[in-house]
């Protein structure tokens, strides 16, 4: 085709093919690793950027379709790039651009053989995620979906000699698979007829299941996608699997892969299903609130830095679900402006989470390389040895804590606006639910700040908590290299830009809301400086002015102080109330910092702790806070299965007479019943 009628979908497809090609190339070239990390990964970063741009292009364009002559007979692979897919493509590309750049530096240390395989899996992972977004028929969607799970499973189990990592991988793949079957079933409900052609999304859009069956489809989809997104109570795999993977992969899993689940829910609910029912919204909302609080609470008591981030991902997924729930409710009750507002908030937040969570995860990668530790309880003071990582991660930390003028704040602001504007719903129960939900959101946000202070403070600030040797080692921990810095720098830049130009972002998101809900948010204020979703009288926010003001005031103060007084500064030993003998062990450990949360929310945790007696010469305190749900939900299921299995195994007891008796009885029974 000539350049005139090239569609976004073509470009996207080409880029995906390119990604797969790069992966294979990496596998082939595993004998010369430098090619892999010096050339292939930067190239794939560029490819990701291309994906992002394609997505941006597709936002404006009308949905365009491609059909590949592959797949099942009568069911070729349908691809479709509409604003929703486009938006998530931007998310995918934007995040993975940074992550791949980072990976170029991070994987340097790996052995060629492992690296080649890993390169393949990494690129398959990227490609399959993109394919999930483009799929326009159930088969392609499922194939891409499971390929995504499979490739990420192999990435998670990269160093499979560690039994815990194997366990994590197993749990992950199991949950993913069960979830996938559920999604499959919901497609089965929605499929429009009995031919193979009934599996295209268009056929599903055309089919009108009864409200009962669409509810079944929705519930199945919520379960399936929830299992992938880590919604409570299907979350158990997430804090195991995400930390186990190499950091860039954890970044992609937390930052991007979870969002594909969100994409799936949105696609199902607002595109494939015709009618929504109010209680879907309530259910989603409640699940979301549960997930958010649960996630942040458990994040607060973690000691492993990557586990902490994983739990915080659970929290953010909760917030996203809340947004979706609100959208459904408003949409059902015909308050489309509000629906658009909350959907915008949801999409915006997923974009934000992709940026800062990837940033933080790759950051932990650098720390891991520098110190060889994941246990925050033995870190501290890294800001002095790794200034770059510290500075860049500070941006991420501030952003994820939802502080102005960074991006985390904008999405939370929009979400809260949605709550504030919500009264007047016909259903009084929902009216009651709304303020409570708002309160819970606020609580979760505040707790997130707590968690992040712990995260950043314990890792980077203070003095190293480790034994003297590793403390000395940490003093000279090497900072991130060029590629790693570039990657993190990009992600940090994303956090800032998304924070400063909300109006532009919202305008882009409007394309999506317009397509899904038939209405969009728009901006009441003129110009790109001031964000006013409904009307400047009601609410407005201008991060740029905010930033300028804060900086202005700060600089003015600094100037005044130094000019009228002086800038003299001396350094001395820390004072600490004049306390004579102070050492690093007197600081709060990660655990100590989480202790108030453990104490306040005691009933939620299953706490095992051994407290030293006053007479111990080397007093040591151990405490683990475990997830009650594991004991209340998963183990019983396991036991039940084992019980059934043991009963069934009685069938096979080795006596041939009884085997014959089975045949005999079966025959007789059948004969009786014909």
């Amino acid at each position, binding site marked *: 085709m000539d350049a005139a009628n090239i569609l976004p979908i073509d470009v996207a497809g080409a880029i995906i093919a390119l990604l797969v090609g790069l992966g294979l190339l990496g596998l082939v070239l595993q004998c010369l690793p430098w090619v892999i990390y010096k050339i292939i990964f930067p190239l794939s970063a560029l490819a990701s950027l291309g994906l992002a741009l394609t997505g941006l292009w597709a936002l404006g364009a009308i949905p365009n379709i491609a059909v590949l002559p592959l797949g099942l007979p009568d069911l070729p692979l349908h691809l479709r790039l509409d604003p929703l897919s486009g938006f998530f493509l931007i998310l995918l590309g934007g995040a993975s651009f940074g992550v791949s750049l980072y990976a170029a530096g991070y994987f340097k240390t790996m052995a060629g053989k492992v690296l080649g395989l890993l390169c393949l899996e990494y690129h398959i992972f990227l490609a399959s995620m993109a394919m999930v977004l483009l799929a326009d028929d159930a088969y392609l969607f499922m194939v891409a979906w499971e390929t995504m799970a499979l490739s990420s499973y192999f990435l998670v189990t990269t160093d499979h000699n560690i039994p815990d990592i194997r366990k994590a991988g197993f749990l992950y793949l199991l949950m993913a698979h069960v979830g996938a079957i559920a999604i499959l079933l919901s497609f089965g409900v929605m499929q429009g007829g009995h031919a193979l052609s009934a599996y295209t999304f268009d056929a599903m859009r055309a089919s009108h299941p009864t409200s009962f069956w669409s509810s079944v489809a929705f519930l199945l989809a919520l379960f399936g996608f929830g299992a992938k997104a880590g919604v409570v109570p299907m979350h158990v795999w997430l804090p195991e699997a995400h930390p186990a993977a190499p950091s860039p992969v954890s970044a992609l899993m937390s930052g991007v892969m979870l969002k594909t689940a969100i994409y799936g829910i949105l696609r199902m609910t607002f595109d494939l299903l015709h009618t929504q029912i109010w209680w879907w919204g309530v259910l989603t909302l409640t699940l979301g609130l549960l997930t958010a609080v649960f996630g942040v609470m458990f994040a607060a008591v973690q000691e492993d830095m990557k586990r902490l981030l994983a739990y915080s991902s659970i929290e953010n997924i909760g917030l996203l679900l809340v947004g979706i729930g609100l959208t459904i409710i408003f949409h059902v009750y015909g308050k489309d402006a509000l629906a658009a507002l909350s959907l915008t908030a949801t999409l915006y937040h997923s974009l934000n989470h992709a940026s800062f969570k990837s940033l933080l995860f790759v950051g932990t990668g650098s720390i891991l390389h520098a110190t060889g530790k994941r246990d925050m309880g033995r870190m501290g003071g890294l800001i002095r040895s790794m200034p770059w990582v510290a500075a860049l991660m500070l941006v991420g930390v*501030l952003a994820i804590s939802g502080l102005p003028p960074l991006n985390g*704040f904008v999405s939370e*602001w929009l979400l809260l606006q949605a709550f504030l504007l919500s009264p007047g719903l016909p259903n009084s129960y929902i009216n009651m639910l709304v303020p409570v939900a708002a309160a819970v959101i606020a609580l979760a946000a505040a707790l997130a700040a707590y968690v992040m202070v712990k995260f950043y403070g314990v890792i980077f*600030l203070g003095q190293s908590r480790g034994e003297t040797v590793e403390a000395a080692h940490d003093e000279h921990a090497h900072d991130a290299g060029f590629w790693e810095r570039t990657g993190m720098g990009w992600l940090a830049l994303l956090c800032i830009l998304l924070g400063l130009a909300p109006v532009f972002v919202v305008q882009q998101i409007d394309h999506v809301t317009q397509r899904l809900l038939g209405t969009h948010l728009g901006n009441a204020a003129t110009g790109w400086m001031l964000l006013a979703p409904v009307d400047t009288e009601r609410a407005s926010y201008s991060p740029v002015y905010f930033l300028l003001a804060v900086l202005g*005031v700060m600089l003015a103060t600094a100037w005044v102080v130094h000019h009228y007084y002086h800038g003299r500064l001396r350094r001395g030993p820390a004072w600490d109330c004049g306390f004579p003998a102070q050492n690093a062990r007197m600081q709060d450990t990660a655990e100590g910092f989480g202790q108030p949360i453990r104490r306040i929310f005691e009933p939620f945790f299953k706490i095992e702790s051994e407290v030293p007696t006053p007479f111990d010469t080397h007093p040591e305190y151990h405490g683990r806070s475990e997830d009650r749900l594991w004991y209340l939900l998963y183990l019983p299921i396991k036991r039940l299965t084992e019980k059934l299995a043991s009963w069934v195994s009685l069938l096979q007891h080795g006596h041939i007479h009884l085997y014959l008796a089975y045949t005999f009885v079966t025959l007789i029974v059948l004969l009786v019943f014909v």
Partner: protein
Amino acid sequence: MIIDKVQIPAVVFQLTQLLLVVLAAPLLTGWVNQCQAWLQNRSGAGVLQPYRVLHKLFLKDAVIAYNASWLFRVTPYVVFGCMWLAATIIPIIAVDLPFSRAADVIALVGVFALARMFSALAAMDIGTAFGTMGARREMMVSFLAEPALLMVLFTASMLSHSTQLPYIVSAFSRHQFMLYPSLAFAALAFLIVLLAENARIPVDNPNTHLELTMIHEAMILEYSARHLALIEWASSLKLFAYFSIGIALFLPYGIAEVGQWSALPLSILLLLFKLVLAGAGLALFEALSAKMRIFRAPEFLGTAFLLAVLGLLIHFLLSA
């Protein structure tokens, strides 16, 4: 754009308030301390004492720990800047503040959070026992106080259909006086939050150095000279800001409307009067109540949170 909408008087109002706030804040602290002194039968150091202290601190040489990082040195300016900014968002003498369009109540809470985050991080920077302890306790107090404050403000903005403080205030002040039950709950919650956030008894004690009880003080132990001065100033700005929020939400009457030059002096007078009363009230309350154990604080603040949510619920119920 904001600028083209703005007329001269608004800018003037904004600037006046900017200066007035930053200059008057220590005075308020001084006044509260003075009242405390009187209540404790001391003669007190006079209302101007804070200024003297600040001056003295600015003159001194700053001493910081060997391992203090840039974060530690930047923090005082950040905190000061945030608090000052907060005080300029809130309509104190007049309702039309062009800048308040840039940041509404949610952003206001955000500003406070930003300052808190930085001071907590700075407290952990040196790596002393008290620093981390203070940071931990501060965050513990705040993660309950912040949502409570947010809920209070939500109640107000529900009533006035806006999250812009100026609109809220003008809405309240323009209405003829009426009783909002939801606001009553909100007011109670706000009072508790105010006490907690400004490190007052019974949650904290602004002028204790008893290791086991202090929260805010523990965080700033390592600061000296100009850094300390800025932080102290910032905290008095914070107190001022909270007072102004309280006044703006619960007794806004007499505040100057858009561009009423004539109303300005009167409103300033009224404001002074309200502040004096409030300060005295605070002092009295502190004198009458005792510091509570640190782990009772969450319950205390939890009550505030619940009250605030209750207020919101009541608003939904009675739509009043």
